[in-house]
């Protein structure tokens, strides 16, 4: 398995086509997780392949360092988020109620900000304020409301 194939814009597991096939409601979100995945992979590979800056940060010693510890955890958090998204996008639609219940905590924890994920897991969805009827403004109404206050 090759990373570049996995993350490919057109045919990878976070591509629009792929996500649309398995869970259409997440299609709009997938470019962000693809960007996140690409970036975190690049950042991790800088540690593996001996990028100058990461080498300096590691200091060549095997000992506890708070900043490195924090950096590792930040990356792990991002990776967990991307993997949760990939899992959701591919399998959540096919999973049964039992699996949903098992996954509910971890998925809501990570992806609870996405309404489509909340709704499929049966969590309450905050009602987004639907764009008001923009066409409902009639010329007559406009003339009255706008002019009264400020017009000379």
């Amino acid at each position, binding site marked *: 398995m090759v990373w570049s194939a996995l993350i490919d814009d057109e045919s990878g597991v976070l591509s629009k086509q792929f996500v649309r096939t398995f869970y259409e409601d997440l299609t709009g979100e997938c470019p*962000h997780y693809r*960007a996140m995945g690409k970036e975190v992979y690049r950042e991790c590979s800088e540690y593996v392949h001996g990028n100058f800056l990461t080498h300096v940060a590691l200091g060549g010693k095997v000992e506890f360092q708070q900043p490195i510890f924090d950096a590792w955890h930040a990356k792990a958090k991002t990776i967990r988020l991307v993997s949760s998204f990939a899992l959701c996008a591919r399998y959540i639609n096919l999973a049964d109620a039992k699996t949903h219940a098992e996954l509910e905590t971890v998925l809501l924890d990570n992806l609870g900000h996405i309404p489509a994920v909340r709704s499929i897991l049966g969590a309450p969805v905050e009602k987004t*304020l639907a*764009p008001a009827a923009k066409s409902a403004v009639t010329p007559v109404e406009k003339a009255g409301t706008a002019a009264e206050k400020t017009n000379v």
Partner: protein
Amino acid sequence: MSEFFYRTEDIPTDDILQYFVETKRDREIVNLLKARNPVVLAGSRGVGKSFLLRVAESELLAAFGKDRTFPVYVTFSKSSLINTKDQLQFQHWMLARICARLVRALSKAGLLGAAPAGLSILTGQSNAETVTLDTPIEKIAADFEASWKQPLESVNVDALPSVEAFRDAIEDLCGSLNIERFIVLIDEAAHIFRPEQQRQFFTLFRDLRSPCISCKAAVYPGVTSYGDTFQPFHDATMIAFERDILSPDYVANMREIVEKQSDSDIIRDIARHGQNFAILAYGATGNPRVLLKTLSRAPKLSGQATNEVIREYYRSDVWSEHSTLPDKYAGHRILIDWGRKFIETNVLPDLKIKNDAYLQAEKASTCFFWIHRDAPQPVKEALKLLSYTGIVNEHAIGIKATRGEVGTRYGVNLGCLFALESAPTTSALPIAQNLTPKRMSEFGANHSAYQSLLTEMPAFKEPSAGDALQQQLAKSIDVLDIAYWLREGLRKLGLTTVGDVLNSSEVELMQIHYVGEKRSRRMRNAAMEAVYEYLSG
């Protein structure tokens, strides 16, 4: 944390296309920039004019082998430094700049192996057997740029070609280098506070029209002194470049722009707090630079940090740029101060009251106001300055309002509107997502809010740019960013103003204790920077 690029100038030319987030409108504009017709692209600071010019340049260069259209990017940002007796100083300087940049661009592209026909005209060298880059014409441009040091001296422009000779030379070059057309992309083309330069620029812009050369210019919205011969809409395609906040893709596009230059932590936090990001994106009102600046202050996008940054940035910081303009252009002080007062005490509170009522009644919201076309000239000038700093943007002209009166509709910066909310994270999005241009506050031809401005400034007249420069040079050395003891050293030498430091030699500065070659240069550079900073509006 990632460091964002706030300015296009900081992005290496080869990487430009990598950061490009293409919207339909962007693509249309880039295509117009690459096409034959002259274009004038107007947009406020930080919306991405320079970026689109560089994208057009990169794409043209990449396709040069096939299309034979050669791009030349030139910036006129130093126009504020020019101050000579020459009536046509700007025209001469601009022509010299274009010549110099053209030769450099050709040389960089490796096209000047053997000196082609027509080249000597552009370099000012009679003997053009050998191609060097330090040409007499480059010297003319440099002399003009240094003219603020000794104001009102004249620059010898004998080597400079006439516009006709320039056009002929371009034709010769096209012939000998097998180039179909040159596209000159001019950034910061006309200085907002120097109507004299604007007029000369547009005259030159029109005169340069020929089958072998197309000019494309990026200007600020307030640039409207076109001179005698240039007619907008006839002599160029005029494009108002605003990112449309009413477009359904607006937030997604802004998000992609940010993601292209963020590290994974920021991308993650944006994904988790999408709504807060949307608020910052709307607050920036189509200005990527402002969005990056606000985001870098609240990278975690928590509710509290988002509210704070909206309040701090849009209540004070956004105005600080506007309010420091009078330091540079004293003649505009009354206009600038009145503009701020007008927006803060008339426009914003009125829109807020209306939006509160509209949203409660589940109606569409507004961020628009309308000014009668017969409003006094000083009011219009004040609005021009507000659109230069991006506090307002001109949304549409020739709009009919109540009683069929005609005027201009402006949109006010959404961030400024959000900053009035007690908790923007809960109430800002409904305002932004329900906007309609059909609702607007109207200000008639003789609105009472204009009175304070009219009593102070009954008529508008163009201030002289030379005065502004003199004022800068007369500033105390306290404005220079140098160490205390160095400043004291300068005082002991009797150098008390910025102008004094600039006119002194490095040797003179070395008389201060512990100041040698390097430090003296550094001090003069600091002085020079201070002047640039003040002058390049």
